[in-house]
């Protein structure tokens, strides 16, 4: 069984985690096309190479990000989600700034 190094709990058997899919940029749901939205919610990029993925340590419900090489299955780095998602996201009307 693989080991995943949780930024909060340290290295643990990967059975303690659930996978949350690729880290992806969400298109602005208020302005994007239908096709863009469908692509966002349905398609996984599934690239061969280094991907950024969401992982959750179940016992602590702690979400973090792992960089993994899908060719070698090597986990290169794990870090808190706050390293990527630093600021509050608002979905306001015009002028409030769109989602990341």
């Amino acid at each position, binding site marked *: 069984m693989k080991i995943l190094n949780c930024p*909060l*709990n*340290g290295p*643990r*058997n990967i*059975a*303690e985690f659930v996978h949350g899919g690729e880290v992806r940029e969400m298109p602005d749901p208020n302005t994007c096309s239908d096709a863009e939205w469908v692509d966002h919610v349905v398609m996984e990029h599934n690239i061969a190479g280094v991907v950024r993925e969401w992982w959750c*340590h*179940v*016992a*602590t419900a*702690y979400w973090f990000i792992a960089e993994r090489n899908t060719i070698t299955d090597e986990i290169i780095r794990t870090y808190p989600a706050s390293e990527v998602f630093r600021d509050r996201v608002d979905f306001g009307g015009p002028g409030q700034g769109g989602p990341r």
Partner: protein
Amino acid sequence: MAQPDSIGPADRPRRSFLYRTLDEAGARFVEINGAAVAVDFGSAETEPDAARTMAVADLSPLPRFGCNGRGALEWVRGQGISIGDANNAAYAQPDGGLAARLADTEVLVLDSLRGSGTAVHRIEAAWSSDEASGAWPVNRQAGSFWMMVTGRHAPAIFAKLCGVDLRRGTFPPYAVAQTPVARVNCVVVRADLGDTTAFHLLGDCAAAEYQWGCLLDAMREFSGRPVGIGALWRLDQGKSPA
């Protein structure tokens, strides 16, 4: 040592999730924190020895307090509880209790084995929906069972139930692990009693009877057995408050 009065296992509205199991195993109960706690199983003299070898005790009715939120650490520290900088570590309190820092936003305060609850009740009372503090109480008292697994074989039985290495070299006193134990998500805190290896084990109260059964099954190999809190008091004696 003055002992609290004996009571029946269900005499109070707050009850251990295990009171029937304990009662069937011959427990004698005393009142602590407004509930019945198994003090011994009719063999108070031999139970400390069992606890040094391999035993489990139910501490579920003892006082504890959880606090979550971005302001949790700061607020609990403000109540006079000392909490260090590392997550997944427990910090000893002057009254014999522990504060386990579970995350940057999560603290669990455990009372001492005496269960007088002074500190826990004080901070519970101090919390008065100060919404600006960003600290929110979590009902760990009602939501979790609390057991203590003791004895020199304790790391070996955890090895049957849990994928984290809890041997002393890798899991020293006051280390904390949040991990599935017998597939129930638990908080494990190493807190030796004198020179006896001991772990606090807290988890979903709905799985209390299941977990108790798993522990006893796993410790059969080492002739493990349930003991009352009285045995833990005996092992803890002589350990003066810091």
